[in-house]
Every structure is written in C-alpha cells, then in structure tokens.
C-alpha cells in the first residue's frame, strides 16, 4: 500500500514536470498564461491521482477482506476436522489393544461413523465455498414459493414418517421470487431439517408464507423444540456453529453445522435476509425474506462485494 502511494506521488510529479515543459515550449506566450496552464495541469493531475488512489485502495481493501475470509475459513476447517480425526485416531489405537469382539466392533463403528461425518463436512464445505460463484452463473427464473414450499414439506413428511408433523400455511395468491429453484429448495430443506432435528417426537414444524410489506415473500419456519439459547442467537448462522443440547445419538452426527450458514449465503445472494429467534410459547422461529420477482434482484446479486 505504501509503495502504491509513493508510485502515485511520482506520477503526480511527472505530470507536473510535463506541464511545465509544455509551458516552456510556449515560451513566447505571456508569463501569466504559463502560470495558469501549469496550475491547471497540477489541479488535473491531483484530481486523477486522487481518483486512482481511491480506486486502488478500494480494490486492495476488498482483496484483503477476501484473503482474510479465506484464512478464517481455512482455520475453521482445520479446527473442525480435528474432532473427527481425534475420534478416529483413538478408536484405531484402541482397536489394536482390545481383543474382545464386542469392543472391537464398537471402535470400528466409531471409525466408520466419523469417516462419514468428515466426508459430509468436506462436501458441504465445497458447497459453501462455491456458493457465491455458483449463484452468479445459475439461471434465475420466477419461482412460485407456494408450490416450492408444498413440495419440500411433502418430502419431509415422507422422510419423518409421522415422527414430526409438517404444517404449511400459504395465501391464495401465488408469490414469486427470482431464484434458481434448486437453490431455493436447498434453503428450505436446510431450515426444515434443522427444525425437524430439534422437534420432539409428535411435535409440529410450521411453515408460514405471506406477502411482505414491500411485496416480497416472507416465510417463517417454526418448531416446538427447546428454542435457541439467547447467547447463541448471534452465532447461529456461523459456519460450523452447532449446538444440540441433550442430543447424543446419531442425529447430532449428521449435522456438521453448515446447513444454516449455507441457507444464509443463498438467501443473501438473492438480496434477501434471514433471521433467527424464539417464539413466545417456546421453540425456534426462522424468518426468511425474499424480494419479489418484480423488483430487480439480479442487480443486488451482482452488486454484492
């Protein structure tokens, strides 16, 4: 950055010299004109130099931001992979030492389970790092949200097979947003998956769609689970943030903590917003706002830094 500023200063100085030389050629022109032209040249070069410096500084800052984001992600990933690695390593060591078949089966199962978890983490990670680039390249169409939510809810009804109920409330009018249907499906699958994971047996997950004040779509996904502890609200969309109280079984293993981060990246990519909160009666509520397909969302997608 310092080098850049120095270079610009030299450039400025050169411009000044050039303008003075031009003035020298016009030797016969009255002295006052020389001064005026030199001053004009000076002002112009100052103006350009300032403009160039501004642009370059902005560019450098954005590159630095991106660099930092990459570094943060790399350290998060390293950190996140060490837990399954630790389980795998200790289980593998114990396999060497124990002879009882039942214990050996248990440690082999730990290794398989953790390998599957790492595999999932790695593929979700590939997903989240490419979301920015992918959203820009994917074709966006007007997606009727009512129908999309109905499909997702139906898939979850089949998946959960009665353990959790899925209720959909949608208005008569069809609300559309501009998006890739697959991406939008992914957003609600992740939200419903999260809600189902926290639901007690027999609980209900409610999906409510309505028109927002600015004409866009407002979707609320609420569950009857324990809700989100207030201290976690600010971190719930962070990559790898995962908090599952009292959950020890296989379900917890299936969630590497990227689903909500991915949902957020997609929603924001489409110029919308996502928020998490708790319902008065208990349970978590996730609110997604998406701009209407009639307002230029693609502009917002492109304008993202």
């Amino acid at each position, binding site marked *: 950055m310092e080098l850049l500023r120095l270079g610009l200063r030299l450039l400025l100085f050169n411009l000044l010299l050039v303008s003075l030389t031009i003035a020298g050629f016009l030797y016969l022109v009255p002295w006052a004109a020389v001064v005026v032209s030199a001053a004009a040249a000076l002002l112009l070069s100052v103006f350009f130099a300032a403009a160039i410096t501004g642009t370059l500084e902005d560019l450098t800052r954005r590159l630095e931001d991106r660099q930092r984001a990459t570094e943060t992600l790399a*350290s998060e990933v390293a*950190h996140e992979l*060490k*837990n399954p*690695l*630790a*389980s*795998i*390593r*200790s*289980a593998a*060591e*114990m396999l060497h*030492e124990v002879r009882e078949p039942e*214990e050996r089966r248990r*440690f082999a199962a*730990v290794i398989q*389970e*953790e390998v599957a978890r790492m595999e999932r983490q790695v593929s979700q990670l590939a997903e989240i790092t490419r979301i920015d680039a992918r959203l820009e390249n994917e074709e966006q169409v007007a997606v009727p949200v009512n129908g999309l939510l109905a499909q997702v809810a139906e898939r979850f009804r089949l998946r959960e097979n009665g353990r959790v109920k899925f209720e959909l409330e949608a208005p008569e009018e069809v609300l559309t947003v501009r998006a890739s249907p697959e991406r939008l499906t992914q957003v609600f699958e992740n939200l419903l998956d999260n809600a189902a994971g926290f639901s007690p047996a027999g609980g209900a997950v409610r999906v409510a769609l309505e028109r927002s004040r600015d004409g866009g779509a407002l979707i609320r996904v609420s569950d009857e689970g324990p809700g989100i502890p207030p201290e976690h609200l600010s971190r719930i969309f962070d990559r790898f943030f995962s*908090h599952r*109280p009292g959950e*020890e079984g296989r379900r*917890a293993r299936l969630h590497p903590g990227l689903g909500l981060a991915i949902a957020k990246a997609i929603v924001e990519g489409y110029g919308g917003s996502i928020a998490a909160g708790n319902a008065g009666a208990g349970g978590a509520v996730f609110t997604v706002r998406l701009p209407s397909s009639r307002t230029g969302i693609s502009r917002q997608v492109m304008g993202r830094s």
Partner: protein
Amino acid sequence: MQSRTELVAVVDDEKNIRETVAFALKREGYRVNTYADGAEAWAAFRRELPDLAVLDILLPRMDGRELCRKLRAKSETLPIVFLTSKDEELDRVLGLELGADDYLCKPFSMRELVARVKVLFRRAALASDPSRREEAKMLRAGSLEIDGLRYTARWRGEPLALTVTEFLLLQALARHPGHVKTRQQLMEEAYPNDAYVSERTIDSHVKRLRRKFESRDAAFSGIDTVHGLGYRWIEAGAE
C-alpha cells in the same frame, strides 16, 4: 488390571472422544465420569471433586477455561489436562494464569494421554511427600534444578510452574548443556508415545517455556534457538 480408586473426570462435547478416553482410562483401573458440557461437569464437581480432570477447551454452556478457573479456585493441586483442537488457541488461552498441568492437541494419541494421566497422578502424590528426595533423579545445570521424580523444576531456587510437556522438554535440553537437540529429538523425548507431533507444536511449547522463565527472570536466555537445527540449553553465567 490394577485396582485404583482415583476418579478421573472427562469433559468433551464429542461423544466418541469422551467414550474412547473413558474406556482407555477404565482399562487402566481408574474410575471415570464423563460430561458433555461444562455446566453439567461443574454441577457434578460441586458435589464431588474428581482427582484429575481431562477438559476440552471449547465446550457448550461453560467453556473449558472457565471450568478450569473454577476448579482451580476449589483446588490448587488437582491435576488438569486440556485437550484442544486449535494449536494457536493454546497461546491465547493457556498462559501462566490458568494453571493447567498439561495439554494435548487433537488428534492426540490415546497412549500418550494415558501416560500423562499416570505421570500427573505420580506428580500430585509426590508433591505432598517431601521426604523421598532421590538424588539420582536430580539434575543440576547452573541455576536450574530439575527433579525427575516429581516432574518439577526450580530456577535460582524458585519453583517454576511447568506443564508435563514443558518439563520433559526442559529435561531433554538441560541433560546435555550446550548440545543442540533437534525438534525431532525433542519430540521423541516430550511425546514418547506419540509418533505424530508437528514440529510447530515443539516450537510453541518452547516459546511458552521461555516465557515462564522470563516471568521469573526478565534477562533469561538459557534456551538458545539454533537456526535450522533446533534448541540447546546454555549454562547460566556462561553467556
């Protein structure tokens, strides 16, 4: 299987780690209680203190640092071992102030962890028994005095609060003053049961070890970095 009565608490939110560690320690004859988060562990510790605690740093509800501080407030001698998945986390988190007795980086070797637990129980038992001073296990290098039986060291007569890893590193260096020890050699001495320790881990332990000396003696320069080779102990007063 020997029968011991010591109670070890294992606190980690990773179920598989918690259970494997518990299994390995029970095989050694220890009694083991496991906890999935800091608050649950603390609730249990308030009723009964364990004889040793193995804590993960990042824990839900109450993190390992806070749990360690609370444990320390209740007992100054209870051995505490940290498990961590972030190497750099240690620098920030475990300075001189927390008073952990040792820490291992994930993915750690289970054999190494079991060995450390045994050392810590031995160190704790001998700390309260000053009668058994075995001269054969004492090592002196200038102003440094190392007690190989108790895993303790003194600098100019003052005790240093060293983790087991730091102690093993210091012992390896001070045994041959002036001789360079490569990182590989130091790894073998500090982690005799673990073949995969990164060289950076050694560097950060040495850094912390130096800092502990410097907190006693600002002009300390007994541990010399030999560029491209490793480290060596320099006799105090000889520099």
